[in-house]
């Protein structure tokens, strides 16, 4: 059967990845239809709270200046929580204007308005049920209402990509392959936030805090909390590996509640009104479990391809740039009238040249290395940090020499010495990974 194509390319999923893909295609003068299952764009999406400038500027150029951000994040903290307090490192610089706190409902709305101006045809409220295949090629999608045909379909349908699953492009995901994250949006007035976080009275400064360290009694979990200041809300959330949650029979909301009640956090969110609760999965499949990125007539990008570097909290930039590269490949394929897997694998080559696969390659084992030592990283060392600062912050009228000696000896006495060696070896291997990365 000869197919009457309705358009040149169909992009499934209007998040940062799908929108970026569609823009790239439309700007090359091709016809592109972008489909999304949500009624209101962005309303299915959730992230920590900030998007970075470099990738946004690459896609949106001068339109970047109209980004509806609520605050520029210019203060970054890493807090190692112990049961009663924390040890915290803060980097703050008014000139650092890389990260922007934007709500997803505003972010995607802003992106799609620009995309439409650049020629993208956007269809919200449209769930893709299946892909249509013919002679081993993907040739279109089936929505609830109709069949829609295009020589190329790009899957930007997020971490749960049921379409990639349908094509068997991805290996089966296991619980250990994802982080489950929940977040609460907490309303406070603008002035209160600025007072509590020591911010100036304008929106060019804001705070992100990474919150590391497990609650006492919760072991074998690698949890990472986060807090972002918005204009008049605080985003407080936490993520943990799903396999750990299953094994330890912990609901992720328990960890969020722990953070909310922690001595460090509670005063910051006090009297705040809970505005919204949200949840999302983050893929941690990385380089080692990367899907087949292309098939005949089909390309996968963004979260659907597992393009996230969770150690650095990077995901939206991977989505934007992998989308652009997918779009670029689609345009080439259209110009050459070749939609085979072989031709579309140009996409993989483009990704190889970009930071995306370089970084995913470099970090391919680092996450596992850290994860294997999570008891040390999330329970033991935050406790030892506290002990160190207890010594140097208390004029306790005891011999400093004895205290410091005892402190350093405690690393040998607290646990089996093997643990210390394993931690050291892990750190060494991580350094080597980065040194010999791409």
């Amino acid at each position, binding site marked *: 059967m000869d197919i009457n194509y309705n358009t040149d390319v169909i992009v499934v999923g209007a998040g940062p990845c799908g929108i970026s893909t569609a823009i790239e295609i439309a700007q090359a003068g091709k016809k592109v239809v972008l489909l999304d*299952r*949500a*009624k*209101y764009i*962005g*309303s*299915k*999406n*959730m*992230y920590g709270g900030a998007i970075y400038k470099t990738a946004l500027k690459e896609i949106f150029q001068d339109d970047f200046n109209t980004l509806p951000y609520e605050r520029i994040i210019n203060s970054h903290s890493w807090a190692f929580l112990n049961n009663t307090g924390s040890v915290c490192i803060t980097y703050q610089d008014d000139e650092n204007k890389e990260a922007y706190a934007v*709500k*997803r*409902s505003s972010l995607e709305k802003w992106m799609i308005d620009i995309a439409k101006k650049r020629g993208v045809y956007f269809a*919200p*409220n*449209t*769930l893709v049920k299946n892909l249509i295949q013919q002679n081993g090629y993907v040739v279109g999608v089936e*929505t*609830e209402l109709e069949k829609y045909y295009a020589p190329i379909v790009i899957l930007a349908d997020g*971490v*749960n990509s*049921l379409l990639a699953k349908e094509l068997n492009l991805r290996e089966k*995901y*296991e*619980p250990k*392959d*994802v982080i*489950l994250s*929940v*977040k*609460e*949006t907490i309303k406070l007035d603008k002035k209160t936030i600025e007072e509590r976080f020591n911010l100036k009275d304008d929106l060019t400064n804001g705070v992100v805090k990474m919150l590391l360290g497990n609650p006492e009694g919760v072991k074998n979990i690698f949890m990472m909390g986060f807090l972002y200041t918005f204009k008049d*809300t605080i*985003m407080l959330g936490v993520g943990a590996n*799903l396999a750990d*949650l*299953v094994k330890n*029979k*912990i*609901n*992720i*909301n*328990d960890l969020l*509640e*722990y953070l909310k009640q922690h001595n460090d956090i509670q005063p910051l969110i006090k009297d705040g009104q*809970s*505005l*919204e*609760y*949200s*949840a*999302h*999965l983050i893929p941690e499949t990385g380089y080692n479990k990367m899907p087949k990125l292309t098939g005949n007539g089909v390309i996968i990008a963004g979260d659907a391809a597992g393009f996230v570097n969770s150690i650095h909290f990077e995901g939206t930039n991977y989505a934007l740039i992998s989308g652009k590269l997918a779009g670029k490949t689609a345009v080439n394929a259209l110009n050459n009238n070749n939609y085979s897997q072989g031709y579309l694998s140009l996409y993989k080559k483009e990704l190889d040249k970009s930071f995306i696969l370089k970084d995913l390659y470099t970090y391919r084992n680092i996450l596992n290395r850290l994860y294997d030592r999570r008891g040390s990283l999330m329970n033991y060392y935050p406790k030892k940090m506290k002990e160190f600062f207890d010594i140097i912050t208390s004029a306790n009228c005891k011999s400093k020499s004895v205290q410091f000696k005892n402190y350093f000896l405690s690393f040998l006495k607290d646990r089996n010495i093997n643990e210390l060696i394993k931690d050291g070896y892990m750190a060494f291997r991580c350094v080597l990974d980065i040194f010999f990365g791409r």
Partner: protein
Amino acid sequence: MENNTNKKSIQDKLTTIKYNCDNKTHLKVNQKKCAKCKDKPCTMICPASVYSVDENTNEIIVQYENCLECGACRLACPKGAIDWNYPSSGCGVIFKNS
């Protein structure tokens, strides 16, 4: 961390969320498989507490209306007993402030 306290805490949080409720479930469980599942992780890990066990019939109750569409249950289920789909076009959770 008491399980009941957590359920209460989740229920409170769910009241903050807006939904456009689908008239049919997008989450189907295979009760036969669930009956053989000892731990029933879905009842513990779901951030919206969608799954619970009916005390009388011992079957899994699915409150799909509360689903946040994260997909955790699909992967956590050791029996592959959850047929997980998206709600119909335009239905399901509506995050406005995330």
